[in-house]
């Protein structure tokens, strides 16, 4: 286990370096100038001076200056706003993380419950309902669900105030909008794997030795049926936490998703690299966490097997 962790942790900087270079390359060849305004055009002297100041006049100067600073959490200044990228991320990431984790909590509880119940009452009315609802959840894009929720509950019925970000109630509608897709996916994953688990020998044994239905399903069954969900949780968490641009826009949430999109539109090279790196670090750590979680839930699973081979 320790060896496995060490290898994975050693791999991380390498993977991050590759991601950094690939992103840098794409950003640098993209047409358009991060320092140019789209309507007022500045004197070439101005543009050149600004680039020099930001260490962005040559690609090599950029690479010599910025990457090594990242080790101490300094992503440099944003090219289009007078803010440090670290400050922007520091303000936006917790917002996205709260919202994302809130959405994930909803998705996990509701998704697992619905999935399990559907598996138990397979082909029943509940199963069909849950299937159709999760189909809608998977296929309706968040810009539709978010806009509908906003229009219905905030604008029309005034059930939720159109608030400034800050209180729990501001999180409910965007949280639901953001949770629909992972919720539906989790429900379907749980259902599928639960059906498989329920027909396995050890469940039959448990039933045969006289255990009641509840513990068989929720204790013995779910523990194994949950494993595929667990492996989905890593990317799902990273997805919901770095935010959905659309949900953030509709509910005016100052999260990280907005910066992902806008930094690219502005060719804000430092901000693009900053957000991409933060996202990558989160994704890698969460995947690692999921692997460790695997072993924790089912000690029989040997996550080092592959590494040892």
């Amino acid at each position: 286990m320790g060896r496995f962790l060490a290898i994975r942790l050693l791999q991380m900087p390498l993977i991050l370096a590759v991601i950094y270079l690939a992103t840098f390359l794409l950003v640098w060849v993209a047409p358009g100038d991060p320092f140019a305004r789209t309507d007022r055009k500045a004197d070439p002297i101005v543009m050149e001076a600004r680039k020099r100041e930001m260490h962005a006049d040559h690609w090599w100067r950029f690479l010599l200056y910025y990457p090594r600073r990242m080790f101490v959490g300094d992503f440099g200044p944003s090219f289009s706003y007078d803010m440090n990228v670290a400050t922007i991320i520091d303000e936006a990431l917790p917002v996205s993380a709260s919202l994302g984790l809130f959405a994930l909590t909803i998705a996990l509880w509701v998704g697992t419950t619905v999935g399990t119940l559907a598996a138990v009452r397979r082909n029943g009315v509940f199963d069909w309902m849950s299937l159709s609802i999760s189909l809608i959840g998977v296929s309706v894009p968040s810009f539709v669900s978010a806009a509908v929720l906003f229009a219905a509950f905030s604008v029309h019925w005034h059930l939720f105030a159109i608030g400034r970000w800050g209180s729990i109630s501001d999180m409910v509608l965007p949280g639901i909008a953001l949770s629909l897709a992972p919720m539906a996916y989790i429900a379907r994953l749980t259902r599928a794997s639960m059906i498989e688990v329920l027909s396995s020998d050890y469940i039959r044994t448990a039933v045969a030795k006289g255990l009641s239905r509840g513990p068989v399903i929720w204790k013995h069954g779910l523990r194994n049926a949950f494993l595929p969900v667990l492996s989905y949780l890593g990317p799902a968490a990273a997805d919901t936490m770095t935010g959905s641009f659309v949900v953030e826009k509709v509910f005016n949430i100052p999260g990280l998703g907005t910066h992902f999109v806008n930094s690219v539109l502005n060719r804000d090279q430092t901000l693009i690299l900053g957000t991409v790196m933060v996202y990558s670090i989160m994704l890698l750590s969460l995947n690692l966490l999921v692997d460790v979680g695997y072993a924790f839930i089912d000690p029989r699973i040997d996550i080092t097997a592959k590494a040892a081979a």
Partner: protein
Amino acid sequence: MYRLLVIPAVILLLLAGAMFWSGGPAQKKADFTFISTDEVHTLDTQRMSWMNDFRVAYGLWEGLYRLDPQTLVAIPGTANPIDVSADKTVYTFHIRPDAKWSNGDPVVAADFIFAWRRLLEEPGEYTYLFHYIVGAKAYEDDFDKALKAFTDDSDPDHKTDHFAKADFSKVGIKELDRLTVRVTLEHPVLPFPDIVAMPPFFPMNEKAMKPFLDDKAFHDSHEHVRRYKKEFTHPPNLVTEGPYQLESWAYKRRLRMRANPNYYDRDHVVSKVVDMIFAKDEQWAYADFTSGGADWLPDVAGEIAGELYARHDPQAHIFPVFGTYFYSFNCQPKFNDGSPNPFADKRVRQALSMAIDKRVITDTVVRSGQIPTTTYIPPNSFKGYKTPAGLPYDIPRAQKLMAEAGYPRGAGFPHVHLLFNDDPPHAEVGETIRRQWRDALGIDVELESIEAVTFANRERNHDYAISRASWYGDYLDPSTFTDKYKPDSENNESGWINTQYADLCQKADIEIDPQKRLDYYAQAEALLLDEAPIIPIYVYTECYVMRKNVFGLPLNVRSMMVFSSVGVRH
């Protein structure tokens, strides 16, 4: 079972942690709250060029001149009195003795000189406005050369002083005494007072910026390179001398200004606390306004503005502004790929211009009171300015011109693109005009929609045939429009170069008789319209939505306002 519960428990724990991290108690509502769909890009007045940055700057600072928000006439601001020489080339500003910074320091001549010098040493989009000042351009160039030599210097000890050649004492900006600053211009510039009222001419407090100075560059350059970390513009570091000071600035959330207790005219500051709420999404912004979250929602556009205009909403105020929406032709003899450019021929440009029925666009596409126009400078902007007629909507004449140019009924016309950035309403406008050209002239242009930054890049490189364009005046004078099409202008994307036009502009620029000056500009505009490097389409409108109890918010053509006069009646 319990093991399984650990996972949601961990997630809930993380959630609690994240919420704690992002938290911050909700603050009390401000006296006046407005929503901006654009964030403040910078509070460094010398780096500003966005409208919303300017708007906030007029709350935090005040120039030597300031604009009367009702009439937009430049009146004495931080300086009073101001002496202007008879030939209008020497301005002597006497700073008010009671003018104070938000930290209590008196405002002195050195604060202006420090700021102006910095703008020449670290130029920005508006440095060109300083080129009217004697020796300013030369100093900017010399300093830039020195800076380049300094940056490329391989000597680790930086023994050479590269900056010896850049001599600020040759620039026509002089401190006569502690409270007096004198500016000498190269030639008379009648709108100079309006220009001095703009943010690039605001003072800066060097003392407050000092902790953010890049000491190494300063020391290595023999105390010439003054670079400041951006933190000097963030609260609580930013020191300003206008009606307000910056209280807090949560990026992409809210910016709060509080009345500056040291401002000389503090008794006339109506709202003590002003909030700017950032909202990227217009629908959200409008919903928040209607639910009572804000008192004022400026810059409403698109669907919402159209709807408000159609139903004469009493809270909506729609008025024409000092800006024009137009199409621009690439007028170079050949396109970048070497193929011949039909728009090098003036007749083709005129024909395309005359074949557009602009009323269709204002009435059915943009729909919020925009005014169809045949002129570049919005008509009726200045008293005494004889607005030229421009090219009329005249299909038979357009067809005749096309035939003369060798494209009868569009025959043989090359395949060209109409380029625009992928924001509303450009695609719809383009589609309408494309149809009109096809019906009237028999030519079919292809619409090409690209993302805004790439668009700007292509425009700069003259990599287009016809492109969508617009221009807003920076100050209330024809020159802010005519400057754009001078042959050496950075903003002349058309490649249209006309020496007669340049001469007329030059004559006007240095003329001190106001009427003669306007006449020269009118002749220049008439020439531009006849040559048709551009097709004026409509005059922009601004749409403000505000509560009935808001007062002191002027509706002027530059949508320029000062927050100090604005309040909410209870």
